[in-house]
């Protein structure tokens, strides 16, 4: 198994070395988004409003983190099941989304769209959330704090272990 260190924003030339099943240690700035945040992203696009961050420079991490205990940078966090986000993904890929982190299979349509847009779908092991919490360098609530775990959090990661599922 090959192990690569990748940093966001992604350098497209780095993608050519990757193969399905390779392990990635991912660093840099990502944004969490679950079902409700995705629905709001699509509303923004449909209403022609500016997108709140540059999708091409970050990753969408399908994740609703646990609360942060006192004195810590992050509570437990990890991937949620990606197929629930499939219904929102293609317009985001068209808008420049390049990297997604989640768990489980994608629909045939999204699989094809990921390949077509030269994007990268990474999977994390689910349920290893105390281990993944160690990879969080910083965490801030960026959008819609009223959504609780479904808000958008901006995370800076160091060496998040994940695997190439689709590219």
């Amino acid at each position, binding site marked *: 198994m090959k192990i690569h260190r990748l940093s966001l924003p992604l350098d497209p030339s780095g993608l050519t070395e990757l193969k399905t099943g390779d392990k990635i240690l991912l660093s840099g700035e990502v944004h969490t988004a679950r079902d409700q945040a995705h629905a709001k992203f699509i509303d923004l696009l449909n209403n022609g409003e500016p997108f709140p961050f540059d999708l091409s420079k970050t990753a969408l991490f399908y*994740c*609703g*983190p646990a609360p942060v205990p006192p004195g810590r940078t992050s509570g437990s966090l990890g991937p949620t099941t990606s197929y629930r986000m499939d219904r929102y993904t293609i317009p985001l890929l068209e808008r420049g989304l390049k990297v997604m982190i989640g*768990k489980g299979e994608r629909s045939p349509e999204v699989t094809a769209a990921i390949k077509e847009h030269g994007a990268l779908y990474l999977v994390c*092991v689910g349920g290893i959330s105390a281990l993944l*919490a160690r990879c969080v360098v910083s965490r801030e609530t960026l959008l819609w704090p*009223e*959504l609780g775990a479904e808000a958008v959090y901006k995370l800076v990661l160091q060496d998040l272990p994940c695997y190439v599922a689709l590219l």
Partner: protein
Amino acid sequence: MGLRTVSAAEIREQVIGAIGEICCRPTPETADLLRAALNREKDELARDMLQSILLNHQIAAEEALPLCQDTGLLVVFAELGSELLITGGILPEIISAAAASAWQKFYLRDSIAPDPLRGKTLLPPEAKPGSSAARATSGLPFILHLDQVAGNRLTLHLALKGGGAENCGALQMFNPGASLGEIEDFIVRTVVEAGGKPCPPVFVGVGIGGDFESCAILAKRALLLPPHNEPDLQRMERRLLDRINLRGHGVMGCAGSTTALRVSILTRPCHIASLPVAVNIDCHAHRVTSRVI
């Protein structure tokens, strides 16, 4: 035996303690089954993933952090002795208060939408998810299955059930003429087709018999209860486990030879026209425990 009393406060403390135990540590059985799976595993990717799961057990326990950020829905099967008198409250309210305290105490994630249709209907604003009204119900509502039994004890079987695994369950109303082969195919297919969604390696609960809803409850109960001693069912469980692991997609649906760690079946009588079969899946985080009070 004879009449006994127990206070609401004691039950509340036991429930808080049980939630604290299961959110941050695997059951001894889960840890053993995962270690055995790692020892058998030849695939490098699957080994790497299993090692991460075992390392997470260690870190979660050391740092008192939840095993998974989805700290789930609290499900309780309660067997209340007819000679036990609870003073100072009724069971649903006691468990509800315990869950609310445990969610705060252990920094568990509020994963419950007060209205299942969320923004899809005209809801009063205070019922919207994430609102203060919603947060006040943190950790709630929970699911309680309450049975009255003989004796003067209260037995609680508790689980924190994650959404990813719960979504992959299925129930089919079979024709009573269905063969065992058809029933087993349905169970195997349900687990295999779930792929990586329920965070395999999984635990598989199967309910056979009863009616529509009791069959589903039986499947979940099978995940929570200690193993039974029915030789025929044990043989069926082993056969199903082998078939799932032969056909399944392995750890996280990605690789390797272990898709399921255990299959548990419970049965009950059913109508001569019916043969319901339900499958309820739990992930490798498998947060279950029991208390006898």
